[in-house]
């Protein structure tokens, strides 16, 4: 079972990713485009158990590109600041990920793997940078996601 494909299938349940162009690792960055970025998962974090199973971590990042405005905030009823609206839209991805963990709705890593936990490593999106080489200027909001799972593929006994 390809875990990256499992992640993509899973994330397409999230409205923010399902309803916007989503790319894998490489992207043509535009407003509202999403990018799923893989990371090398360090084996040093693995925990081996005496029955041969191993606890592993699968981590990846979602980059959410949002066009930005340079308008001062206005204290006026009904006024919506675009940057704040965009931030909340990205925040909704984090909330969705953590809600799935509460529901124990996880990606399908195959019959050899049991997912224990899925969480974002931060409560809020972080700003990973601003790309002013494109018009409109894009903010890169970053969400790191960590999945802990048990890999039973090396067990002798079932």
């Amino acid at each position, binding site marked *: 079972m390809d875990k990256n494909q499992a992640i993509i299938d899973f994330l397409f349940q999230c409205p923010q990713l399902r309803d916007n162009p989503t790319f894998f690792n490489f992207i043509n960055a535009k407003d509202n485009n999403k990018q799923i970025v893989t990371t090398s998962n360090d084996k040093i974090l693995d925990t081996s158990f*005496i*029955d041969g199973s191993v606890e592993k971590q699968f981590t990846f990042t979602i980059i959410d590109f949002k066009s930005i405005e340079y308008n001062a905030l206005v204290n006026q009823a009904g006024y919506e600041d675009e940057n704040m609206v965009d931030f909340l839209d990205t925040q909704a991805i984090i909330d969705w990920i953590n809600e799935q963990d509460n529901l124990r709705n996880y990606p399908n890593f195959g019959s050899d793997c049991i997912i224990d936990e899925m969480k974002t490593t931060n409560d809020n999106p972080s700003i990973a940078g601003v790309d002013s080489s494109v018009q409109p200027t894009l903010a890169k909001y970053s969400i790191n996601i960590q999945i802990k799972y048990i890999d039973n593929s090396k067990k*002798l*006994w079932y």
Partner: protein
Amino acid sequence: MAISQFNLQAGQYAQRKELITVAEWTEGTGSEATQVREILGTRTESSSIEYNNDTSTTTDIRGINYTDLNKTQPQQTFDPFLVLGGSKLGAKLNDLRRRNALNEFNQFTIYVITKYVGSAGAYEAECHTGCSIFITSLGGDTKVNMPIEVHLSNDYKGSGAPGLGTVDKIASDFVFTPEVQG
């Protein structure tokens, strides 16, 4: 009986997962009684059989020590022993715990299987009947932990010694075949 050699290449170490402790008990009664088995050690990072050797040593007038091994009381602790979905032993022990059924904690058969001794279809194993498994605590931080102690009886069906034999495979439906003594 000849001593069995390790089925490992020279210098190759045995993997921890090749030393297997299995609990067996009976569910139901009469014609509905069934044997249930579960491997111990799921989510346990380290666990060893402690032999709790009882020894006595005397020293003769030349200063030479003579140490006798009087008895062993083998015991193995599994910590953590997490409450996991699908764990029949966990459910069994939890039932004994909540009923405080003290006289039912000692009705387990324990197999210790050494996959690194023997060959495919005949891995060496020992069988202890009338063993005890105790819960030592219940709780934890983010996961419910129910650590257990397994006390091996050193007894195989009243023989006064562990049953020695082989198992035909590393799976819950293994068949234990006692060695023919002689």
